[in-house]
């Protein structure tokens, strides 16, 4: 590949926020000798090409940004919005009031229901999703900026973090990057363990009436008992209604399924607004797994403790396929694992893996039963070959 093509390739990765550290390094080095016109042309091309894609810039920043422009540009505000409203109101009298009341009712309606609130929660979650690629530290993002970083080892107290940020409305997202694992305490003292490459979005005003969280990735929840109002865990395709219980939810965007496993208590599975299946309550020791391809929900008995082994830094395998093991390991260790060994990826394994060991040692355990092999590690890339 010549330098020009390589530059474009790196530009495209950087622009789509998919560049690895190594690629960023190479990109920055290449830029030095490239004239502005070339970069401008690339910027133009990718802007045009990306017109249909999702906007990463959060719309919540709108007010702040506009206020700054008004301030810096010394732009006079219009002569009182509210006065205008009162004038019109007086002119049209009560008819206007009735129409206004109905209009407000109609406008508010979609947001008052559970479904509606899910929209804004899900919006916030989606807006923060890029942090999974952006940060390599456990971080909390509020409506606007980073609220803070947390050490992966300590329990993150969500109430404390949002209090420090001074934000009282909107949502915060806790991002646990690949290679990390985190434990959180929610304002109602419920506990959540977040696995590698996961995000949890929660309302900053977390209370009895506003207690829905949105999960991307995998989390194990121990929800304190609630007598009246349920707690909801939302994922892109499955809603889980909780009355005080412990359960595991796995909803990685790159997996073919979303699953919930109940350990104790009671949960109810509901379809997201885009899907259509019967609400169903599941019993302890069972899992509800939604296949994203055929959109079918499957209920089966499982050994629930195995499903949450990751919270204890273990991975318990029971006839688990090699391909799935490698996917999980690459998330946990934030590594790319390449199997050049040519093994059938449908081959299954059973046993327990200790995740406190280095990845090379874990891989050795898996491949040792196969005689000759070697593992080459370059940075975060592990290649297994004969």
């Amino acid at each position, binding site marked *: 590949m010549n330098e020009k093509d390589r530059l474009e390739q790196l530009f495209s990765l950087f622009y789509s926020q998919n560049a690895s550290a190594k690629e960023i390094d190479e990109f920055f080095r290449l830029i030095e000798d490239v004239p502005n016109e070339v*970069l401008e042309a690339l910027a133009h091309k990718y802007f045009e090409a990306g017109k249909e894609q999702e906007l990463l810039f959060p719309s919540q920043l709108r007010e702040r*940004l506009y206020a700054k422009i008004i301030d810096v540009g010394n732009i006079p505000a219009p002569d009182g919005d509210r006065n205008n409203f009162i004038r019109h109101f007086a002119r049209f009298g009560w008819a206007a009031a009735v129409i206004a009341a109905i209009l407000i009712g109609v406008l508010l309606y979609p947001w008052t229901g559970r479904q509606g609130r899910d929209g804004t929660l899900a919006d916030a979650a989606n807006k923060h999703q890029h942090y999974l690629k952006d940060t390599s530290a456990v971080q909390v993002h509020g409506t606007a900026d980073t609220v803070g970083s947390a050490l992966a080892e300590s329990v993150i107290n969500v109430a404390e973090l949002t209090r420090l940020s001074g934000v009282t409305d909107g949502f915060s997202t806790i991002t646990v990057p690949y290679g990390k694992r985190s434990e959180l305490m929610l304002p109602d003292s419920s506990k959540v363990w977040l696995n590698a490459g996961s995000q949890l979005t929660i309302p900053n005003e977390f209370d009895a009436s506003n207690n829905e969280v949105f999960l991307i990735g995998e989390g194990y929840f121990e929800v304190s008992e609630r007598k009246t109002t349920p707690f909801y865990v939302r994922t892109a395709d499955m809603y889980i209604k909780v009355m005080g219980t412990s359960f595991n939810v796995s909803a990685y965007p790159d997996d073919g399924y979303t699953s919930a496993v109940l350990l104790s208590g009671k949960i109810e599975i509901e379809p997201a607004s885009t899907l259509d299946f019967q609400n169903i309550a599941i019993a302890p020791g069972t899992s509800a797994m939604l296949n994203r391809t055929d959109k079918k929900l499957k209920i089966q008995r499982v050994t629930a403790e195995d499903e949450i082994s990751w919270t204890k830094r273990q991975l318990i395998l029971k006839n688990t396929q090699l391909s799935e093991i490698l996917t999980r390991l690459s998330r946990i260790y934030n590594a790319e694992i390449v199997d050049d060994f040519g093994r059938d990826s449908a081959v299954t394994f059973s046993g327990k893996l200790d995740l406190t060991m280095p990845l090379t040692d874990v891989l050795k355990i898996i491949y040792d039963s196969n005689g000759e092999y070697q593992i080459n590690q370059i940075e975060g890339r592990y290649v297994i070959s004969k």
Partner: protein
Amino acid sequence: MAAQPFKEEHKLLKRIAEGDERAFSQLFDNYYRTLADFVFRLTGSLEVAEEIVQEVFVKIWEKRDELLKIKKIGDYLFILCRNRGVSYLRQRARDYMRLRAYAQSEINEIELENHHLARTERLYVIIEQAICALPSQQQKVFRLAKLNHFSHAEIANQLSISVETVKKHMKLALRSIRESVKENEYAINSILILFLWFFSCM
């Protein structure tokens, strides 16, 4: 989805030229997100995206007398953002190279195994990103001190703050950078220790 141009753009621009704030806010609402998203992708920084979009709209307001000469306001706004974004990206790359060269010279003095050296690029990028994530004043102070080699007194003078404040900013900046590095390297290795040392006496 990207912004669609207005149907009656000319009328809107005319109202802005006459000093109508409401028309200005309409223009802003139609374009700001597409532009900010673009600058964010181009520069990798939300803060810079906000800054550039702010600058561009303030400029539009200040030059509102000349607005009617512009045929396609969307293209015009884009070009203003693009040029600023590209020049920021270049600046960022230049700073990165300076940081890299500096760190490299420190590393070269100590012999390291090859596979450790291979990890250093990741660390440069982590450090560079940590610097970019610093609050703006801290970042300014840190860049002037470490990448432009100004003394604390010179920085204090330049930013009209006290030397004590400069020192405080430096301390906080170094602490956050060190924490990012620590956070990122789940497997402690000799490079990490080296870097922590490097940042403590830099």
